[in-house]
């Protein structure tokens, strides 16, 4: 990742669309998912209802879904920037997990919606998160390609595996304490990278 826009995460929305997505997000942050309407988003963005429908023909549902997708993509763009200066692949993954876990915990709007409107939020959020699997794998691919992979392990499936682990852990850490750098290092070493290091080539001896 070299600049603020990631080709991996798809083309950024047009300025007009971007403004509407930001406006919708502001409305959702203020009053939740249940009450959001096309009118409210249009008012917040200072445009007409017709303009909203021109950009989002599906109306309210499309607007909300794309806003969730926009925020999820934004979340992972920030994450990519946060880990860009790390040296080794293991460092990248450790930083990513520590950073993402903290960002989810500190995300006021997300936490509010998870507490009050999980049924409305989670279908869109799960869908958008899964759509990010390929771009996250693409982002990870150069790191995986730099690894001395064991025979039989190929770059693309391995990058996809790592992306799935990261996405799953960010959503639900389970038994891992993702605020503890030592635990995160152990997690990366034992579960995420164990299969991506050729034998006798352990860059991180226990």
């Amino acid at each position: 990742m070299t600049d603020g826009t990631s080709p991996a995460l798809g083309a950024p929305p047009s300025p007009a669309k971007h403004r509407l997505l930001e406006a919708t997000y502001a409305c959702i942050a203020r009053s939740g998912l249940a009450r959001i309407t096309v009118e409210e988003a249009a008012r917040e963005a200072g445009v007409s209802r017709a303009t909203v429908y021109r950009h989002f023909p599906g109306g309210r549902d499309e607007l909300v879904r794309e806003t969730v997708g926009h925020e999820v993509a934004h979340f992972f763009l920030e994450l990519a920037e946060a880990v860009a200066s790390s040296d080794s692949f293991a460092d990248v993954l450790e930083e990513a997990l520590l950073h993402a876990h903290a960002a989810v915990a500190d995300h006021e709007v997300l936490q509010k919606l998870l507490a009050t409107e999980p049924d409305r939020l989670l279908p869109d959020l799960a869908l958008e998160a899964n759509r990010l699997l390929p771009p996250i794998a693409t982002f990870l691919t150069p790191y995986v390609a730099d690894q001395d992979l064991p025979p039989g392990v190929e770059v693309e499936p391995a990058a996809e595996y790592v992306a799935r682990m990261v996405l799953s852990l960010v959503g639900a850490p389970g038994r891992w304490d993702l605020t503890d750098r030592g635990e995160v290092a152990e997690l990366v070493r034992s579960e995420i990278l164990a299969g991506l290091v050729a034998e006798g080539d352990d860059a991180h001896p226990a």
Partner: protein
Amino acid sequence: MATITMSDGAPAPAGPDAVERRVLDAALCCLARWGVAKTTLDDIAREARVSRATVYRAFPGGKDTVLDAIVVDELSRFAGDLGERLLGTDDLEDLLVTGITFASQTLTGHEALQYLLAHEPEQVLPHISFGRFDGVLAAASGLVAPHLARFVGEELALRTGEWVTRLVFSYTMAPSPTYDFTDADDVRRFVRSYLLPGLTDRTTAPAAPPHPRND
């Protein structure tokens, strides 16, 4: 829906009686056909060929109680079937391949679950995302840990159970172009590539190395 509270592989001590069984099976058919919102208690009674009164006698809370009972029943059935299969495995690789393949086949082949994921995701996804998924991970790892402990030791068994559960959900909810988790051969390649290298250096029982050493 009911909270998942499985803690071991044993089926619930008091399973459903014959009438309850019929109602639960009928309700599952209705869910696979119409989903949660459109299924009525009358539909369930008709499908089970019993009266509304009979359904209410078996499930006094009505539709919601039937739905909760389905979740408990399906999970305990799955736990029992999985446990049986895992008992028959005699090395770590087989245990992982058998468990992952069976769990994935059960999830993707479950008609009611798949209908809901496609048409009423709000009925399912909140139960398997974020904080609730931590609960799923804990329940599922508790279920498989006694089996895993035979090969990786008790300390690592719960952690490994979680790891595997994560992957089953990830690779079945968003299928991969590379690994079909319902295919035992694909799963075996996956297990050898990504799971065994993280487990074999610490196993308490000998297991085949995932990659032949060149030295």
